[in-house]
């Protein structure tokens, strides 16, 4: 059995290695793109001198290893340089998008916990059979239907039919909380539904398992009130795997945010990636891809660490 610290030290290098490999891969595939970005950017009528000047300004005149090193250097210093087409500094663009995406992801995470918790507890403890069946049907539906379908359905229901929520766009939550929440609700719900369904199922299964354990049955026999039974005896045993699952789902939420942003015109990193890709703005694409992968790897690492923290047996493997 290893200590927690040695487990941590063992996991870090492999996460860093994955990140490093991913950076090489991203750098390499963007160099595989046919056509010279400087030529494309300068336009068809540009003189060779203009193209050469542009190439130098964009840092495309060095050898590939030198360009790669310069890129890594820029990532360390945070000075990411100008974007080709979208306009402005890459760091500013990514900063703005990151704020919006973080808001959406955190909103969805909150909804996942609330909705998933409610579904799990309701599905496992409801007295009436039809309630359990309804919860099961709802989670099956939410799990199998893709987000772009739920997104369209949510807009049809809440924006077109009921007219209570806007169908897309964003007002920053910090600027105008009351208005911001209205814009945030639909995209966050669309993003959260599959994760909430997964969470609800795991939690429900965990609670059902915990209910059959001896110490819980003893507590039932002792006549402890249902609410207290759930809080003090059932949930503590059912929660640890759910916490791990939540970590994994956070990674999925980040990936899914890219799609949900496109559906609801939410100006986050996904929208920025879409713009940068369609306009072939490679500095933005390159930094953005690495950032998304880095966040995803970090979330996975934190999940592993949380799991090892909760369940010491894992560290020995």
């Amino acid at each position, binding site marked *: 059995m290893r200590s927690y610290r040695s487990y941590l030290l063992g996991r870090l290098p492999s996460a860093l290695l994955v990140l490093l490999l991913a950076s090489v*891969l991203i750098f390499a595939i963007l160099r595989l793109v046919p056509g010279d970005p400087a030529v494309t950017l300068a336009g068809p009528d540009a003189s060779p001198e203009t193209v050469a000047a542009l190439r130098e300004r964009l840092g495309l005149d060095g050898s590939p290893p030198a360009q790669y090193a310069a890129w890594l250097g820029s990532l360390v210093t945070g000075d990411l340089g100008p974007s080709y087409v979208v306009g402005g500094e890459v760091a500013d663009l990514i900063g703005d998008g990151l704020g919006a995406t973080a808001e959406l992801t955190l909103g969805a995470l909150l909804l996942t916990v609330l909705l998933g918790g409610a579904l799990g507890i309701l599905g496992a403890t409801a007295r009436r059979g039809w309630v359990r069946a309804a919860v099961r049907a709802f989670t099956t539906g939410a799990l199998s239907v893709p987000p772009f*379908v739920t997104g*369209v359905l949510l807009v049809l229901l809440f924006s077109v039919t009921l007219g209570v929520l806007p169908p897309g766009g964003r007002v920053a939550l910090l600027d105008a909380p009351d208005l911001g929440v209205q814009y945030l609700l639909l995209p966050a719900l669309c993003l959260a539904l*599959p994760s909430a369904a997964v969470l609800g199922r795991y939690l429900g299964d965990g609670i059902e398992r915990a209910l059959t354990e001896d110490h819980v049955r003893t507590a039932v026999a002792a006549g402890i009130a249902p609410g207290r039974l759930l809080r003090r005896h059932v949930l503590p045993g059912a929660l640890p795997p759910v916490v791990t699952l939540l970590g994994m789902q956070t990674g*999925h939420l980040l*990936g899914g945010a890219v799609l949900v942003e496109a559906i609801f015109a939410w100006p986050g990193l996904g929208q920025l990636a*879409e713009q940068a*890709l369609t306009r072939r703005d490679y500095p933005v694409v390159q930094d953005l891809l690495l950032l998304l992968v880095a966040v995803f790897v970090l979330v996975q690492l934190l999940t592993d660490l949380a799991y090892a923290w909760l369940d010491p047996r894992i560290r020995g493997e």
Partner: protein
Amino acid sequence: MTASAGTPVDTSASTPGPAAASAPAPRPAAGRRRSPYRAALSTPRGAAGLALTCLVVLAGVLAPLLTGHDPTGQSGQGLLAPGAPGHPLGTDDLGRDLLSRVLYGIRADLGVIAVAVPLGAALGCLCALLAAVHPAADTAVQRAFDLVLAFPGLILALAVTAVLGPGRLPVILVVALAEIPVFGRQLRAGILVQRGREYVTAARVGGTSPARLLTRHVLPNAADPLVVQFAVSLTVAVFLEGAMSFLGVGVRPPEPTLGNVLGQAMPYLDRSPHLAAGPLTAVTLLVLGLSLLADALNRETRR
């Protein structure tokens, strides 16, 4: 995306008894193995899933017989309501027949899925077999899987289209690439579990060659989770195709796919919600059918 929790890997249920170790003839074993799939298809869940899937697949395959309209032909009458003469589902903003766009959209999706998922599954299984040969290969394959898995599905789609641009081929490539580590890990785990079992040890002691051990004993018993995974991956493929269309990096318009027909309905949701009805129904039925199938297979094979 939905694959993560739906099908936890558990191959323990498909253990043959001690009899299998000494069974000389593979035939009866093969007959016995086939049954969980049949049993799965005869449960209400499996039968409903199969029926829904077949319905949508048939609609796509028979598209040219079911509609006389060209899915990209513009009639000049835009946004006709459903039930208009000659256009049962109405027309879209450019006056194209919606029924034919949905049917040909299913067809396009099937075309992508039918190539991409088997390709990804085959490559993934090949990687797992490679990993089973030597510990060094195992490490290399594991790291490669980690690398691909570091790109969540849609980020991978963005990376691939950054190089190839939008189109049908990138969609196929993204789906296949995303499935490789999924199948690879599944099979690798299955092989490791089976290798540790007594019947394999018994066969090895009996002098079975490593190759025969793998193909005759280990692989057949590690296959069940792969069948379930295949059904799950089909839904993931529908999801990826649609998502890529929504992001503007999927199959190029005007060719219809389920994703881009639905995506093109988005700006008209408030005035003409009927544009979304056809693709919504088709995607939902297809995905629900495949999910039910996966669920039924999962229950029966883990029994």
